[in-house]
């Protein structure tokens, strides 16, 4: 009996020692990327956020990331690998990682997860998102001013709420300036394929659009727009290098502040499940400099941006009809976030059939 007690005591001591030692080790913060960290778009923006965490909390945390993780079954393996390797907090940075994140989170209740742009949470899974649509509303207004033909081309990735929301915001913005404005939508069914994105851009330009915007991740469409001499909007990162005379502005994702805030909360033991959805005013997205446009258009864009930041203007505010003409929002009524996050319908003015 004495021996057993002694053994127990030793084990406890060893265990206690081990946990004390690990507390002095740096916490491991991990990221799962859908693309390459240098794609010049979506994933690069997340990686810049990761670097900011390293920079500001580098004495307390170390970061790790996995690139080019395909959405689907592979994602599960990748996330599980990170969870097993001792990551305390894992950011999964693509919509398609949602179910995989939830599944692995159930297996590892002690690991915290943060999933970008999704809508499923759990006791150890938080979600975070950015109100990209605020930027797309501004882009729509600029497009309506800049387009001579009144038709813009929209290269979309997958028919998920976030993308549909973006298309709607763009159209609502454009129609607030020119009620006759039209857009043509092409679904590339990929986030990342420069060749296919370029083909989609060419198809749209060949069919007569003179402004291009994209919700895919590479600079290929910007490059085609530059070659054909039309104007375009950048996505996720400032793409001005790919089109110095082409880019009007870009929605720039600036995740850094959020990552630092949440990682700090994790270190302090104050991490909780939240569904955060910040916008222009919180600095989670910023507009790249308004370039290649006349001063009056620039002034309009800046005024709209200021109004969105102050909360005076909400892009999804009535009167608005759905695509089929049925009423959606009454005069002055704004959409609630739940409807936006599950958006599966077009507003009036979109000339496309939404893939279901």
């Amino acid at each position, binding site marked *: 009996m004495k021996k057993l007690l002694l053994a127990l005591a030793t084990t406890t001591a060893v265990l206690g020692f081990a946990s004390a030692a690990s507390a002095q080790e740096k916490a491991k913060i991990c990221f799962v990327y859908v*693309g*390459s960290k*240098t*794609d*010049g778009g979506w994933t690069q923006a997340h990686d810049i956020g990761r670097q900011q965490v390293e920079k500001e909390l580098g004495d307390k945390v170390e970061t790790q990331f996995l690139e*080019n993780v395909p959405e689907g079954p592979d994602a599960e393996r990748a996330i599980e690998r990170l969870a097993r390797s001792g990551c305390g907090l894992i950011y999964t940075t693509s919509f398609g990682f949602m179910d995989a994140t939830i599944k692995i989170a159930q297996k590892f209740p002690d690991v915290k997860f943060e999933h970008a742009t999704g809508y499923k949470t759990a006791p150890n899974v938080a979600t975070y998102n950015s109100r990209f649509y605020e930027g797309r509303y501004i882009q729509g207004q600029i497009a309506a001013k800049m387009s001579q033909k009144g038709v813009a*081309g929209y290269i979309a990735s997958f*028919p998920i709420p976030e993308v549909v929301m973006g298309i709607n915001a763009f159209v609502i913005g454009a129609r607030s300036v020119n009620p006759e404005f039209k857009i*043509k*939508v*092409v*679904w*590339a*069914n*990929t986030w*990342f*394929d*420069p*060749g*296919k*994105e*370029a*083909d*989609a851009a*060419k*198809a*749209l330009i*060949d*069919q007569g*659009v003179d402004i291009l915007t994209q919700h895919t991740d*590479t*600079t*290929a469409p910007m*490059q085609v727009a530059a070659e054909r001499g039309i104007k375009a909007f950048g996505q996720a990162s400032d793409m001005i*290098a*790919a089109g110095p005379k082409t880019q009007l502005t870009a929605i720039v994702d600036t995740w850094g502040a959020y990552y630092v805030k949440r990682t700090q909360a994790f270190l302090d033991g104050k991490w909780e499940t939240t569904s955060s959805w910040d916008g222009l005013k919180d600095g989670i997205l910023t507009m790249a400099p308004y370039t290649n446009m006349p001063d009056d258009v620039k002034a309009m864009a800046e005024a709209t941006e200021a109004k969105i930041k102050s909360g005076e203007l909400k892009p999804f505010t009535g009167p608005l009809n759905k695509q089929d003409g049925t009423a959606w929002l009454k005069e002055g009524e704004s959409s609630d976030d739940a409807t936006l996050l599950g958006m599966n319908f077009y507003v009036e003015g979109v*000339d*496309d*059939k939404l*893939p*279901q």
Partner: protein
Amino acid sequence: MGIVEAILLSVITAATPLVLAAAGELVAERSGVLNLGVEGMMIMGAVCAFAATQLSGSPYVGVLAGVGAGALFSLLFGFLTLTLVANQVATGLALTLLGLGVSGMLGESFLGMQGIKLQPIAVPLLSRVPFIGPLLFRQDAIFYLSIAIVAGIHWFLFRTRSGLKLRAVGDSHGSAHALGVDVIRTRYLAVLFGGACAGLAGAQLSLVYTPQWVENMSAGRGWIALALVVFASWRPWRVVAGGYLFGAVSISQLHAQAFGIGIPSQFLSSLPYVATIVVLILISHNRRMTLINTPASLGKPFVPDR
């Protein structure tokens, strides 16, 4: 420029890398070697072509670098599978993974750089023919090369003694060896040629299709090229037909969407693959013809008895 012309121009750009890579792989497979590393060789070609273009300022130097990189990379495959007799399927898959990784590393310092496009060369007189001129005779050098290479392969395989030997090696390496053909040497050359073509296809991606470097920019085109070889039942001109059919369907579906036809985009996106399967079924209907063209020793290792 009319809409039909515009569509066809995009089709040519989209189909050229597929045709090139598939044509090269066809020669390797005709010699009995199944190289699943096309994607890896292609992406190596793409990154080296882009890098060399940036460093030298000339896209033609880039094209040469792409070809060289593809060939060099395939040499690794040749050494492993022909000299060391490693499993071809496993080695090919490893080559693809290695290529994707190494290219990302090599290309890191070239990311976000402005590409230099390989400019079209107008063929005198012919380029002025209405419709056909701008389409076929105002293209870049890689397009002209792709057609010349396919014609050359056809001539070589079916009109020359060396081509006959290569096919003999692919059909029955034992018999060819007994007749005094150097099986290993023939296969090395075929693999090298396949690598060079895949590298050229990669150069087209980073110098013509989208003049930029991003990781994974081949985005699965190497796999489509591999499928095209089977689709073409190992006949060179059918590779062209298959590549252009695939390109045509993928480009027209984008136009159909932009036009607002209202067919679900997922269905349209899958059309190129559906079309490929339909044609495959039609072709394989005639089993005897398929068997005649399939290299009988495909994928089988050869160890000469000493």
